[in-house]
Every structure is written in structure tokens, then in C-alpha cells.
């Protein structure tokens, strides 16, 4: 994988801006501001992995307490990622937001989350050396 150059950072920030644009459009076009919750969800999503990664001792293979903490973090990350998709679907099913707003906010949320994840991957690779 190539190192995280300037082009990568520019592309990632562009994708992030498009994601925020889609989410804010889905709110502002219909004057219903529930889809902003998607942004909060995807910002929260990598947090359990980070916190539990700090708590666990990765050298500890025999005693499985460390792995259990890591598993809790993964479980909640999976929970939050699906929450970002499920929340607009729930709102659209109850007619609180439009279906178009649901599609836009889900797409924008996935773009934001993809940016966060790929940025974390590039950052981690930088840390290894």
C-alpha cells in the first residue's frame, strides 16, 4: 500500500465533505433535522475499538481477559455501524423523514465512516515505522 501522501489526504477530505454535504442536504431540503444523528453515530462508531484497544493487553494470549475486552469493543463498533443505517430507515418507515432523505443520509453516513476508517488505516501504517 502506498504511503499516505498529500493526494490521499486531499481525496479523503473531499469524500468527507461530500458525505457531510449529503447529510446536511437530507436535513435542510425537508426542514427535518433528525438525519444529523447519523453523523454523531458514525463519529462514535470507532470509539469503542479505540478505548478497548487501550484497555486490553495484546501480549496476553493465554489469559483471555484481554481478548474479551477487545471483543466488547468490536461488538459495539458493529452495533454503531448498523445503527447508522438503521436509524434513517426507522425514521423513514414512520414517515418522520422522506425516503429521499433516508437514502441521502445513509449514503453520506457511509462516506463519512469510510473516510474515518481509511484515515485511521493510513495513520496506523505511519505509526508502524
Amino acid at each position: 500500500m502506498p504511503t499516505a501522501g498529500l493526494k490521499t489526504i486531499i481525496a479523503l477530505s473531499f469524500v468527507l465533505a461530500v458525505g457531510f454535504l449529503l447529510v446536511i442536504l437530507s436535513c435542510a431540503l425537508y426542514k427535518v433535522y433528525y438525519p444529523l444523528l447519523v453523523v454523531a453515530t458514525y463519529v462514535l462508531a470507532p470509539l469503542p475499538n479505540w478505548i478497548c484497544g487501550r484497555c486490553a493487553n495484546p501480549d496476553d494470549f493465554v489469559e483471555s481477559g484481554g481478548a474479551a475486552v477487545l471483543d466488547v469493543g468490536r461488538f459495539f463498533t458493529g452495533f454503531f455501524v448498523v445503527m447508522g443505517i438503521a436509524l434513517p430507515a426507522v425514521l423513514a418507515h414512520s414517515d418522520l423523514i422522506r425516503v429521499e432523505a433516508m437514502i441521502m443520509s445513509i449514503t453520506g453516513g457511509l462516506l463519512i465512516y469510510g473516510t474515518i476508517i481509511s484515515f485511521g488505516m493510513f495513520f496506523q501504517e505511519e505509526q508502524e515505522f
Partner: protein
Amino acid sequence: MEEERLWKFRKPEWLNSMWARNAGVYAAGALFSIAFYVMLDSAVWSKSAKNASDVHVKFVDWLPLIFSSLGMLIINSVEKQRLSTDSFSYSGSGVAWKARVVLFLGFAALAGGMAGGVTVFVLKFVVPGVGMPALSMGIENLVSNALVGFSSVVLWISQNMEDEYSYNLSL
């Protein structure tokens, strides 16, 4: 170790990889999230303008999901390796026995949650003869309880995978 195999078919190799068990844990979280949001969807839909009937989701409808989740928490908090420690001589305090009792309580809570979901569905929706758009609230209740059970199965399997993995690593 190879002679102690019970089944004819051996486990595929990729099941023991670190990648597979991490994916299993993520999938369990995703399934639990779907379960919770299916239930939340029925509650939100019940209070929304789309619900024309006078059937509403109350706290009773949430109870099966609460019990299922409690059972899932109990089941997956028990250390699986303690279940087989009775064969060793140094387990004097009966840890395996305690683990079995706690695990039994967990499975009872999980199965009780599912049975409660069916009970709510039958007593509140089928017997009064509720029509289709409102009936979907009861169906969502059933689906969410089934998904919690499925999620705990996935989490259980991936935790057992981890044990195999660490066993291979320690050899």
C-alpha cells in the same frame, strides 16, 4: 489431537483464523443492532401518524427483548473453558458446576424472551384479530427476539473459535 475428533467432517481451516472470529464478533454486534432497531421501529411506528389503529407498543412489548438481551449478556459473559474443568483435580470449588448453573439461567432468559415474544404476539395481535399494518408491530417483536438469539449464537461460535486459535498458538 487428530484422533480425538468426533465428527466425520473436520472444521475448515479458515474458521480458525483471527480474521474469521473478528468478523464473527462484528457480525454479532450488527445482528444485535438490527434486533434493537427493529423493535425501536415498531415503537416509533406505533406512536407515528401512520398508525391508524388503537394498538400501541407499551412496556410489555419491550419485556421479551429485555429478557433476551439479559440472557445473551449472561451466556456470553461466562468463561467457556470453565465448563470442562471438572475433569481436572485442582478445581475444588466447583467452578464448572457454577458455570453450568449460570449458563442455564442465561439460556432460560433467552428462551423465555423468545417465548414471551410469541406470547405478546398471540395475546395482543392474533387473538383480537388486528389487521395488517398494525400486525407488523407484533411481527417485528418476533423478528427482533429471533435476531437476538441468532446474534448470541454467532457470538458464542466466534468465541469458541478464539479458544481454538489461542490453543493452536500456545502449542
